[in-house]
């Protein structure tokens, strides 16, 4: 057994807990999880059945934690995990799983399959079997500060541009602000209108907010490859920043996994409850709308639909707010089939979009989104995740569908009346 394999197996042993033992003991191989997975439904290849993606973890469970499995291991009649096998499983655990969690909500015996994929990734990463694309993103986040290599000067330059374009100052490192706003690199580089939108929204709501110079990047590729040590380093920066600035709430940007990393995994990674709240920007907008702090004028008149980012909706519990916000600014808002809780992934979540060699499969899986869109024929597609947005744009371009993709936050901000107007 190679040293890296040994490390991987040790980590897998560590992550196995009562839920995982219960889940593996309950699976009856009914295959229903396959029908929930877009990588299976769009390819028809049975190897993409979600529970099958967990085979290495299941074997470690059986061989290490069950009486009969231990006897079989002792008698040398069980099949040990090999390097080659883990290498082969990389495609199943990363390229063809976006951690969308649809399988977990359909399993008739109640297995939380995505919970197990997340844990299996810990062992895959420890044994050196995480894909280069996400590994690179994680390492850049740790060493440079962002997966796309964005440093503070780039953020400051963007702040300056936005201040000039919108005529609103962008606060940085303001102690005692109510909200600390996080960004994703994608927003810093590709979608600067997000920052301008926040400035407008906060000004109208009369809320104090700030960016943080030591923690502006919210995405967490450490969580995506399944390396809790790296994920912890990345989350700790945000915790330290938020505590130094004594903010009440940290706002996760339009990015699904950033939200999961911070909202649900963050406290567990650093090993203590947070002293501040974490909210997705859509939750904050929902609250402002409810409290009458968000006032818009005019309506979009073309046909709009909303793509639910998995980590925001099914995995995060924010399902109604985006709908009520859409209705505030859109006359012709239509829902795709399966929208909301059962929505289909864009195909690039969970780090999958960073895997170059997974592109072909990703585009194949995109046929599901294509079918959903064809059912309602929208003029534009609204979402609330910068990663979804990029993946959607790529898929739409590939299938030559002329549907622009826009972010919900900036679309809302466009309807906020100019000050004094």
């Amino acid at each position, binding site marked *: 057994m190679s040293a890296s394999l040994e490390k991987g197996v040790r980590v897998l042993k560590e992550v196995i*807990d009562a839920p*995982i033992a219960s889940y593996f*003991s309950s699976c009856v191989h009914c295959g*229903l999880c396959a029908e929930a997975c877009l990588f299976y439904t769009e390819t028809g290849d049975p190897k993409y059945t979600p529970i099958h993606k967990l085979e290495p973890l299941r074997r470690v469970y059986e061989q290490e934690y069950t009486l009969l499995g231990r006897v079989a291991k002792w008698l040398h009649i069980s099949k040990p995990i090999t390097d080659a096998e883990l290498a082969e499983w990389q495609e199943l655990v990363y390229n063809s799983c976006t951690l969308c969690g649809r399988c977990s*909500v359909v399993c008739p015996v109640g297995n939380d399959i995505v919970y197990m994929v997340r844990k299996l990734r810990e062992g895959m990463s420890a044994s050196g079997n995480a894909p280069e694309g996400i590994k690179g993103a994680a390492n850049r986040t740790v060493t440079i500060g962002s997966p796309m290599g964005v440093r503070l000067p780039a953020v400051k330059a963007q702040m300056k541009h936005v201040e000039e374009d919108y005529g609103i100052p962008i606060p940085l490192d303001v102690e005692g602000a109510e909200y600390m706003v996080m960004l994703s690199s994608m927003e810093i580089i590709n979608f600067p209108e997000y920052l301008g939108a926040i400035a407008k929204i906060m000004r109208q709501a009369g809320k104090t907010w700030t960016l943080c110079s030591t923690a502006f990047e919210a995405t967490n590729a450490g969580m995506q490859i399944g390396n809790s040590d790296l994920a912890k380093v990345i989350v700790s920066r945000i915790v330290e920043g938020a505590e130094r600035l004594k903010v009440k709430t940290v706002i996760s940007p339009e990015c699904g996994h950033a939200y999961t990393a911070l909202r649900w995994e963050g*406290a567990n990674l650093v090993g203590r409850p947070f002293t501040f709240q974490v909210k997705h920007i859509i939750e904050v907008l929902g609250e402002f709308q409810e409290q009458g702090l968000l006032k818009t004028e005019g309506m979009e008149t073309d046909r709009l639909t909303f793509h639910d980012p998995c980590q925001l909706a099914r995995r995060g519990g924010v399902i109604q707010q985006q709908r009520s916000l859409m209705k505030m600014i859109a006359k012709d808002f239509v829902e795709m089939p399966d929208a909301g809780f059962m929505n289909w992934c864009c195909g690039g979540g969970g780090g999958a979009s960073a895997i170059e060699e997974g592109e072909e499969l990703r585009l194949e899986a995109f046929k599901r989104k294509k079918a959903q869109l064809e059912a309602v024929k929208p003029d534009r597609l609204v979402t609330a995740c910068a990663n979804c947005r990029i993946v959607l744009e790529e898929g739409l371009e590939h299938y030559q569908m002329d549907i622009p993709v826009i972010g919900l936050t900036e679309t809302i901000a466009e309807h906020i009346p100019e000050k004094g107007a």
Partner: protein
Amino acid sequence: MNEMQFLTWVRGPGLDIALSLFVLGVLWRLIEIYSLGRKKDLSAPRHKPGASGWHTIARRSVPPEGMFKTSPVSYVGGYVFHIGLAIIIFLFIPHIKLIESLVGVSWPGLPSQVVDLVTVVTLAAMIVLLADRIMKPTKRYLSGFQDWFTWTLTFLPVLTGWLAVQHLLLPYTTMLALHILTAELLLVFIPFTKLFHAFTVFGSRWFNGAVNGHKGVPV
């Protein structure tokens, strides 16, 4: 060993051995699984925890939105044979009498003709599900020795029980003894095969419901 001796053995020592292995096996497996525990979730819950785990135990008995039409055979076949098994095991009067002799509690049963009909339907559903497992590429791909073995383990006691009651194929005494023997084999293997889902299904649904309920998502 003649057929009477065979019957006497399966009713006496055979039953004792099977029940002991079953009870010890179930206890061992439950401890083996649930004593692993889990880490406390330190993230702030969206709502107070409540009974989301219990809700999922109930909710997961019904196909989620859009799923029924993807696999109607699995759902219909699954319902029919699970409910059928429950009726046969717990509402057939001789079974109730056996349970009464073991643990001292009893309840009213169903007329034998009704159980007969349920048995035929259950056997048919199990055959359909077996055919589905063979024909459907995904199910066949997932299937290993255990899947075929546990199907056989479950099917045989139902089949032999029905044949015994109908006085078909073999003399009644022999068929009854075979029925009891196959039921004993089933009991022995329940804790150590996927059949153990009969126990862990509740824990699994509960964990899933609790973890997602923490996030405010009813699953």
